[in-house]
């Protein structure tokens, strides 16, 4: 039997259909960054511990470093590049800036994706709920408080503008 080590993978990424030639060893993270040129998603640990590579896959936030590109065939992927509306930042992005919820910024795209997933499920998370649902994202700069504040502040703004 011949060993096929490459394949074409077609996925919807932030609403655009993209096909890439993927080695079997390629992760979704590498597919996004190296093949599709979407470098907003960051590589941290590559072992699913840090969450810097968090993206949405079929409506669920996952560590893209632990998803094989082959599994993204036919999937709907949303990355940090899809969060803003054109030049208008998403409330989460604005609140991260206002609260200085980042320093080096490597964890920020993952936090934004996970926080957006959280607020879509729970528009008014408590402090404990926010920490629980963001537990898969590590930040070594801020000590987390500014991130929690930014997420809850964004949630409050989104709730009042939804009224």
């Amino acid at each position, binding site marked *: 039997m011949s*060993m*096929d*080590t490459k*394949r074409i993978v077609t996925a919807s990424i932030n609403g655009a259909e993209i096909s890439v030639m993927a*080695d*079997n*060893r390629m*992760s979704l993270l590498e597919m996004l960054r190296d093949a599709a040129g979407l470098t907003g998603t960051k590589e941290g640990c*590559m*072992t*699913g*511990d840090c*969450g810097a590579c*968090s993206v949405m896959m079929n409506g*669920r*936030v*996952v*560590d893209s*470093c*632990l*998803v*094989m590109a*082959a*599994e993204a065939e036919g999937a709907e992927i949303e990355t940090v590049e899809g969060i803003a509306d054109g030049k208008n930042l998403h409330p989460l992005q604005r609140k991260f800036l206002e609260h200085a919820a980042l320093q080096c910024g490597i964890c920020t795209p993952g936090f934004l994706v*996970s926080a957006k997933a959280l607020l879509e499920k729970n528009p008014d998370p408590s402090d404990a709920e926010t920490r*629980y*649902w*963001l*537990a*898969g*994202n590590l930040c070594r700069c801020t000590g987390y408080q500014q991130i929690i504040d930014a997420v809850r502040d964004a949630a409050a703004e989104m709730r009042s503008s939804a009224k």
Partner: protein
Amino acid sequence: MKPFAYHQPGEAAEAGRLLETHGGQARLIAGGSDLLGELKDGIVHYGQLISLSRVKGLDQIHQGASGLRLGAMVILARMEGDPLLSGPYRMLAEAARGVATPEIRNQGTLGGNLCQRPRCLHYRSPWVSCLKKGGSGCPAMESGHQHYLSVMGAGDCRAVNPSDLAPPLVALAGVAIIDGASGSRSLPLTDFFAGPDQIAGRDNALRPGELLVAVELPPMPENWRGTYLKARERTAGDFALISAAFGCRIEEGRIEQARLVLGGASAGPMRCPEAEALLEGQAPSAETAARAAEAAFADASPLPHNGFKLDLGRALVSRAISQITSSTG
């Protein structure tokens, strides 16, 4: 990572045939959160990965007359909140909630959680040889890093199964449904995992060409309740050092149908029949819970650097019993 072929069969039998054809060169991949770590770290290599993501029918939770059937590809995030995992089965949702991180729970599956490899630091290190990796010696016995090793048992490998779902599933008398190229069979989960005398090369009872396709749980009395408690180094994202699944029902003020299963204590999830017998028919009290906790660890033989797990374990068992017996009945 070395190159590999990547298969995505649509049927369990086809996955079984691929496993049989490729023997030791093949490995199943479900969510991938455990296996990819091993592959990236160079701990293992397989020339053929067989993905279960396209196999039909493995991602269902089904309630029937004979009990509850959980497909092997049900993701842990679904188990956290599925309405069928309530009442007696609520302890499974609790256990799922304590696994890793939200991201991993969106990828990780029930089957993968049960079949994941141990967390022993020596097994996980690409730089040291060990029995579990086919080497000739066990560096863990002489090491200070023994927190992910058993406190009971006499096998040549003291690594423990790190699954958080295994102890509650054993408490609920779960049965492994196994499929493969040569047909299907079922096996109580108590016989599925390696026992205290585990052989290093074998984590579970799956034979070559076989795969776990579901876990079936027999019906439980309506008023049976259980909980799963887990001790770990950090509140989130960590594996259990030691854990306890406990459940029972209270009839006229007395404990009935007590089930106590430890995780992280022996090679696989370990039922504690002596402790269960001590509880049976007793009125709930702190003293009864403490006696059961003592009994659960009576046969412990900890290693030089993991005796602390006994204190943690007894505390978890007492707490789990008190929690359930004070809220039930």
